[in-house]
């Protein structure tokens, strides 16, 4: 008979990972560390540098939008047959970035992955800002942005209603629901931390504003009880929601009959791709930010390593989808499908395709090595690669499928105009402006959640 006693004192990093809060921290020092960032009289110099660049780019975005609206969408490279060019690529790219936030805050919460606490606030903020950037592109893509309200079922003078059978309208509902729910989720998580900032406030203005938004939170346990339940419910709702949002984005393409777009694996493939790109963006942001604001104790090497693993896994899923698409394109016997995929790899946009494959499938393979996962420089570079690769994935899907459609006489090589390029750059300006403001004025780390995973937080009760 085998022993019925579990071996004690077995310690191994792979099975029992390092503590989530490094260093000799107490509950109070965690508060100090996080609140210190926004209570400091001045942010670090690098903050000013990045913020200035971001605001400048935001100005470029504003100028581009004004130019677009006053002149018309002809200033873009979009034309037949690539009528869905650059803006939709950017839309899908930004929505995808957004997904990691929900994944970290909701899905990892459901999977009881404690390590999410260090980065979830970050990721949720990133989600919201990315969705803002994403939502902008279809809005300006309609050309007449002053009639964008037509997509909502609002009583109006035409006595018309939107067409709910259109995937584009599903998008409107999916993205706006996603934005609303993400915002609620993010704000809900912020409330106890805002209360912390409120209670430490040194000025009347801070006490008023943080007080206003912390809703009079007292840390009451009866409140915490419902709060945690609501948090769980929101997480449980956000998980299928995040699935649905990028699935709906994929439906924009997959419900059509265009070879290269119409394939049934697109919904889960898009979701995996979104998580993939989102995690890469979280890494891109958190590696410099933890340095800039001195949060290395809270966003630890373990967090970064875990994110690398997620990137590798989702990168593999994306690779699986690439190969399934190729196999089915051949297996179906459909000549058009076959052509579309050969055209992807060896057509006029072959470079886009191979950038995508090498960035998305090949580059994360380095994370098989623990040393690579531990090396911040490598991780940072790969995360940038993945961002680039995922942008190119959307470019490949949108542009290569459209530029050689069924009618060879209408084949046309799409190239972006300077307005296209500056608009994309400007959207990064919007993103980073919001992000920098967030870093400066709101707690970057979920203080109460981090405290909750510290050993001090657990009551030692004999009767349990």
């Amino acid at each position, binding site marked *: 008979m085998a022993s019925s006693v579990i071996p004690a004192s077995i310690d191994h990093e792979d099975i029992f990972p390092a503590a989530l809060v490094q260093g000799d921290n*107490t*509950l*109070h020092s965690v508060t100090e560390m996080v609140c210190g960032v926004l209570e400091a009289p001045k942010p670090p110099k690098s903050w000013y540098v990045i913020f200035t660049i971001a605001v400048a780019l935001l100005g470029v975005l504003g100028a581009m939008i004004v130019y677009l609206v006053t002149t018309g969408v002809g200033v873009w490279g979009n034309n037949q047959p690539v009528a869905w060019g650059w803006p939709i690529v950017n839309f899908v790219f930004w929505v995808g970035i957004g997904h990691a936030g929900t994944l970290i805050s909701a899905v990892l919460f459901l999977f009881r992955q404690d390590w999410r606490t260090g980065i979830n606030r970050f990721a949720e903020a990133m989600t919201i800002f990315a969705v803002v950037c994403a939502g902008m592109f279809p809005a300006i893509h309609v050309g007449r942005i*002053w*009639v964008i309200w037509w997509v909502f*079922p609002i009583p109006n*003078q035409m006595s018309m*209603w939107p*067409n*709910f*059978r259109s*995937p584009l*309208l*599903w998008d409107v*509902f*999916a993205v706006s*629901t996603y934005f*609303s*729910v993400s915002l609620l*989720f993010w704000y*809900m998580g912020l409330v*106890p931390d805002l*209360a*912390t900032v*409120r*209670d*430490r406030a040194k000025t009347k203005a801070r006490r008023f504003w943080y*007080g206003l938004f912390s*809703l*009079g*939170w*007292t*840390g*009451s*346990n*009866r*409140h*915490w*009880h*419902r*709060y945690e*339940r*609501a948090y769980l*419910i*929101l997480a449980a*709702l956000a998980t*299928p*929601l995040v699935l*649905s949002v990028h699935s*709906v984005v994929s439906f924009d393409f997959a419900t059509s009959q265009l070879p290269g777009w119409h394939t049934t694996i697109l919904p889960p493939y898009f979701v995996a791709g979104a998580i993939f790109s989102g995690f890469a963006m979280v890494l891109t942001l958190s590696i410099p930010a933890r340095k800039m604001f001195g949060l290395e104790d809270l966003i630890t090497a373990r967090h970064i390593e875990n994110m690398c693993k997620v990137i590798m896994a989702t990168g593999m899923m994306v690779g699986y989808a690439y190969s399934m698409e190729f196999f089915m394109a051949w297996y179906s016997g459909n000549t058009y499908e076959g052509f579309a995929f050969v055209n992807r790899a060896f057509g006029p946009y072959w470079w886009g395709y191979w950038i995508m494959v090498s960035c998305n499938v090949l580059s994360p393979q380095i994370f098989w090595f623990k040393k690579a996962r531990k090396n911040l420089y490598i991780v940072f570079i790969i995360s940038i690669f993945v961002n680039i690769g995922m942008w190119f994935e959307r470019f490949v899907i949108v542009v290569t499928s459209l530029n050689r459609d069924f009618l060879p006489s209408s084949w046309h090589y799409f190239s972006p105009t300077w307005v296209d390029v500056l608009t994309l750059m400007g959207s990064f300006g919007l993103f980073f402006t919001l992000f920098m403001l967030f870093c400066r004025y709101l707690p970057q780390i979920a*203080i*109460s959640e981090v405290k*909750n995973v510290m050993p*001090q*937080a*657990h*009551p*030692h*009760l004999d009767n*349990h």
Partner: protein
Amino acid sequence: MTNDKNFYGVLAEFEDPTALCKGAERVRDAGYKNWDCHSPFPVHGLDDCMGVKFTRLPWIVLAMGITGLAAGVWLQWWTNAVDYPYDISGKPVWSLPANVPVIFEVTVLFSAFTAFFAMWGINGLPRWYHPLFRKSSFAKATDDGFFLAIEAKDPNFALDRTSDFLNTIGAKTVEEVREADEPAGLPAAIKAKLWITAAALLVPMAMVYSSWDATTTQPRVHIIKDMDKQDRFRAQGQTTLFADGRMSRAQVVGTVAEDQWFEDSSFVSGKDGDNYLTKMPAAIVVDSDFILDGQKNFEIFCSPCHGAQGAGDGMIHQRAVTLAAQGLAVWVQPTNLTIKRIMDMEDGKLFETISNGLNTMPHYAAQIPLEERWAIIAYVRALQQQYGDTSLSAEELAVMTPAARGDLILKQQGCTACHTTDGTPLVGPSYKGLIGSEVPLISGETVIADLAYITESLREPLASARVGALAGVMLPFPQLTDAEIADIFAFLSTLK
């Protein structure tokens, strides 16, 4: 219980989560109802220690989720299948598979909003004022402090006893908490503003109520004017392109449009050379459809004056007569189309009359297309067959007296439309007492009305026009023979 209205309760601080849990168990067991713990993070296990009942939040969310599901279904069904169904990409207007994504999103939206707002609602937040905030030590509750507060309104509460109790169960410190010494109700100024806002909200509603279906001289409000008005050509519009500002352009002088050219020019003119056509142009086949077309156009364009049966008694005539009596119109009765003169008139002459007008009748070439003018003539002929004069035979005429023949001729030629026999002046002078009277002519002369005068008035009415008459109104009657004029004279001579 305490009688001090402003006394809130006592606040105890504990060392750590463990102490708090143990303390909470004791407070629970002591039977307190109105009390709570405060900690910077949710202490797991504390719920059991406090005896917190499991929240009903999930059930509320479920109920609202189902509501959202129903709302999603209803929204799409109502908008796309009932209120505004239209055909897009061949999908049925009510096609569930395509509606699933939005149903799902709306369900999640409702559920998530409910989870969020119901949670704050049940928690009684936002509540910016709280007596506990008045204790500076309580700031630690969101940092690293663990507190337990018992409210004074708890039936078990007694200040000393409760404080001692808290001390015995491991509290680090115990403090008394009082409400702020200020009124709890809304200040009057804010109340007034709220009422004003509420009243102001009624204004837009009143505006909508008053504008509903109201007659206005202002053009409709188009919220998005986008492309409503375009710089493009539209019939009868205005333009800056041409000097006269008209978009509709006149035909270039000296040109004939393709559809205006006819091999048979009589179709356009009603004349064959200098002679009027006596029958329809060769291109026209008169059948019942053609006559019905003629009827329609007759009723549109002719009947207002000539009357539905062509008797010259249309609604315009009747109104004009009334107005003429007041001196507001200068009116000649429209010709009765069923008299012999018109029956005898050539088709070509009738066509010319419709096209170019005659005497007081305006021209209708601009209003009535060519072929329909011919159709009107066909219909007029049909009217004449039904209501027109039936001519007497030569034998019958021969046995009549000359005066009787003259009476008949006047009626057949339509003279009685303007001239009466009883002395009443109409457009023209009455025939009564005419013969033998002195007639002042517009030329200044005066003549005796005799056979020669009557003959001249019928042959050349303009030359013998008398003072006070509407010169040029009366038509010449060249078709009358001398014998017929003699008969007319004989009839007129009887009217003394």
